[in-house]
């Protein structure tokens, strides 16, 4: 027989001003069955108030407690602790919300009092059915996986490793560094991107607690928070990394040299065996099987002959590795959008119409022109450069409706660099200049005032070649008239888009993504680095377009979230999760269909019968499976059918 205690709070006058709390307590004890004790107190949440509960539990041998006071969102934990102190399981307590949902919203004293009593009656009925629950404990594998070795992944990996935890870093490209390694100078300080990034890259390579897999991809992920198993495929490099000394002779000798260089955004070229860029980490070459003569025709093999270390091996099979990790940071970054949908800008037709990333490579000291700004068509130094912003951003028709966030700033930077490095006059076509960031607005002003960039508010309708010049036709919407400029080069600020295989990885990880395939955070404001999957966190542009400072901040945030998991001996989780009664389950797996968290697994009983089983590590306790189960085999602890019916029946 349930023995319930009811504790009615006055909350000063907040409740007592509208609800006759004394009468409520009296009537609760008299009229509601299972109530063996009821009392009221001025502030239940105060220490003496809690003490009343603690003592009542002992004195009246209570099996359940109902606190009639404020919202459980306010003080549920407070009263759960009080119950625990009194020797009662904290999950045998419920709160009747007679403040936010009664005394504060109703004026009539009689009605509010009656409603308070009813709310208590419902809760008493539910508490009579509650069972003691105990937090779930999950062991933790003390190792983190970081996917992606751009600046976000590098920062997250270093932060975790520096906090004495092991990290596995997986990078798809032959070298870590990501897009930041491609940049020349960075806004708003104009410090050299590679100069600040490469030391961090080296730190990653040399860190004793970071295991780096470059030219490798995540093949599959299983398990749950604290206990993930990750299968990694290492692509065949063609080079034995144990033997390679990184001397680069193979690269020099390779006869296939006209391959567009990915690192240089297609502006320069590379050989078939190549090191992506001089400061690459790791610094081993990789053979591009698509272009290598040996892979295509079984001929050549020059690199192998020239390699003194005997490191060229021409392997073809990927190698698979399994790593157990406790938590995952996803930092896969973005792809620059190819502005081919803008036929009117002539990208891909006129050689001097380039994307911003290409421009970045042209001005970079490590680029194909060694940092001298030359236009691609004839190698001349451009005197006048037009920049077009929002190419693919803020465009519902041809591109994406979102703002790519970094283009205003890097375009201003490009305008400044064009002036510094080539003495060129810049024209910037913009919709709005978005410069919200520390020192950002000042930076835009600097481009305009010190480096003479002319900002024209309006869109460009056409770019075409006229002799050696490019004619840029557009509209100045501030002056309300058409503009026509004769320039030497046009730079398109093309949109930031999600990685082309972002959706594929998301499905492996079972994390959510939006319609553009950017990964979705658990809450846009309060949980910006969590995903909907416990133990997996987001860093950088895989979540949304952002600049380097924001990326690095988010990476450190993700690292600290990951560390919170790794620093625990075991994880405790709320026990309010679903369970399956295998006797009732007929293995239709409707529950698996509705579970967003992949928490439903298949289990074979000793009798050979297949049933579904809830993985307590993955279940978040939403209860969708419970209401989907036709047999009533599933129940959600703390919200079982019985408990809810008890509440309904009490009306």
């Amino acid at each position, binding site marked *: 027989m349930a023995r319930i205690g009811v504790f009615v709070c006055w909350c000063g006058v907040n409740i007592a001003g509208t609800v006759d709390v004394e009468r409520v307590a009296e009537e609760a004890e008299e009229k509601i069955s299972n109530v063996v004790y009821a009392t009221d107190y001025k502030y239940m949440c105060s220490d003496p108030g809690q003490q009343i509960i603690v003592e009542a539990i002992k004195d009246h041998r209570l099996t359940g407690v109902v606190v009639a006071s404020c919202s459980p969102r306010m003080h549920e934990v407070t009263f759960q602790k009080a119950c625990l102190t009194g020797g009662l399981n904290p999950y045998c307590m419920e709160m009747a919300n007679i403040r936010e949902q009664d005394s*504060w919203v109703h004026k009539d004293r009689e009605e509010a009092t009656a*409603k308070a009593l009813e709310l208590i009656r419902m809760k008493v009925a539910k508490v009579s059915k509650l069972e003691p629950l105990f937090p779930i404990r999950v062991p933790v594998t003390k190792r983190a996986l970081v996917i992606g070795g751009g600046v976000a992944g590098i920062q997250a990996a270093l932060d975790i490793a520096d906090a004495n935890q092991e990290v596995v870093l997986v990078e798809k490209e032959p070298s870590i560094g990501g897009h930041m390694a491609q940049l020349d100078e960075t806004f708003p300080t104009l410090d050299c991107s590679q100069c600040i990034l490469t030391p961090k890259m080296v730190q990653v390579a040399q860190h004793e607690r970071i295991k780096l897999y470059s030219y490798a991809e995540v093949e599959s992920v299983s398990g749950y928070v604290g206990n993930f198993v990750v299968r990694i495929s290492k692509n065949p490099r063609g080079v034995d990394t144990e033997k390679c000394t990184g001397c680069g002779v193979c690269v020099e000798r390779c006869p296939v040299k006209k391959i567009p260089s990915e690192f240089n955004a297609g502006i320069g070229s590379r050989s078939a065996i190549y090191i992506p860029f001089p400061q690459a980490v790791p610094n081993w070459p990789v053979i591009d099987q698509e272009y290598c003569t040996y892979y295509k025709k079984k001929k050549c093999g020059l690199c192998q002959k020239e390699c003194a270390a005997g490191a060229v091996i021409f392997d073809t099979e990927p190698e698979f590795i399994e790593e157990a990790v406790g938590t995952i940071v996803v930092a896969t970054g973005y792809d620059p959008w190819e502005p081919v949908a803008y036929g009117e800008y002539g990208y891909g037709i006129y050689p001097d119409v380039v994307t911003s990333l290409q421009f970045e490579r042209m001005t970079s000291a490590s680029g194909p022109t060694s940092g001298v700004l030359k236009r691609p068509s004839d190698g001349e130094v451009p005197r006048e450069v037009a920049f077009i912003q929002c190419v693919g951003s803020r465009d519902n028709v041809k591109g994406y409706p979102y703002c790519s966030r970094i283009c205003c700033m890097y375009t201003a930077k490009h305008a400044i660099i064009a002036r510094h490095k080539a003495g060129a006059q810049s024209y910037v076509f913009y919709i709005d200049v978005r410069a919200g960031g520390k020192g950002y607005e000042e930076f835009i002003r600097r481009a305009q005032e010190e480096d003479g960039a002319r900002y024209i508010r309006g869109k460009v309708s056409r770019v075409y070649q006229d002799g050696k010049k490019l004619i840029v036709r557009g509209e100045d919407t501030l002056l309300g008239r058409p503009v026509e400029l004769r320039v030497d080069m046009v730079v398109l600020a093309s949109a930031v888009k999600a990685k082309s295989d972002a959706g594929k990885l998301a499905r492996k990880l079972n994390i959510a993504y939006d319609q553009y395939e950017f990964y979705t955070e658990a809450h846009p404001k309060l949980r910006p680095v969590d995903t909907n999957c416990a133990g997996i966190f987001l860093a950088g542009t895989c979540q949304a377009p952002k600049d380097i400072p924001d990326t690095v901040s988010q990476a450190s945030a993700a690292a600290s979230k990951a560390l919170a998991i790794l620093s625990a001996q075991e994880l405790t989780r709320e026990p309010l999760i679903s369970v399956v009664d295998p006797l009732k389950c007929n293995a239709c797996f409707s529950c698996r269909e509705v579970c967003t968290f992949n928490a439903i697994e298949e289990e074979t009983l000793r009798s050979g019968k297949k049933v579904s089983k809830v993985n307590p590590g993955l279940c978040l306790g939403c209860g*969708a499976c*419970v209401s989907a189960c036709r047999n009533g085999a599933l129940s959600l602890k703390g919200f079982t059918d019985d408990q809810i019916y008890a509440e309904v029946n009490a009306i």
Partner: protein
Amino acid sequence: MGEDFKPTIIGFVCNWCTYAGADLAGTSRLEYPANIRLIRLPCSGRIDPLFIFRAFLQGADGVLVSGCHPGDCHYTTGNYYAKRRLAIIKRLLEYIGLEPGRLRLEWISASEGQRFADVCKEFTARIKELGPQRRLRQRTAGE
């Protein structure tokens, strides 16, 4: 229908949006009729159709189901299940002769305290118009 008819309305609401929205209505001291009693669930996806029938059998005059706005579900998809289930329940209730207006689905977020209060006002007024629900109410001992 006498003015003294005091309908009983049961609200099945999710913890993350609507329950918090109701709390906000309280914090903002937005007055609404005292006829509604909320049953807090983790998610609108937890709502079993039978809960709604049980509420009507117990004599509820109206049932409100409310969760997060589409796309905002704390558990990503629970509110979509709720929406689909409710669409069918509505038809079933109609079929057995219950006025469709007695069951109401609303998306109310944690920031929509005003909306919660407005919905309660409107819904209570609507239920008052419809009068006591007798179709499914089980006879109690006194009757």
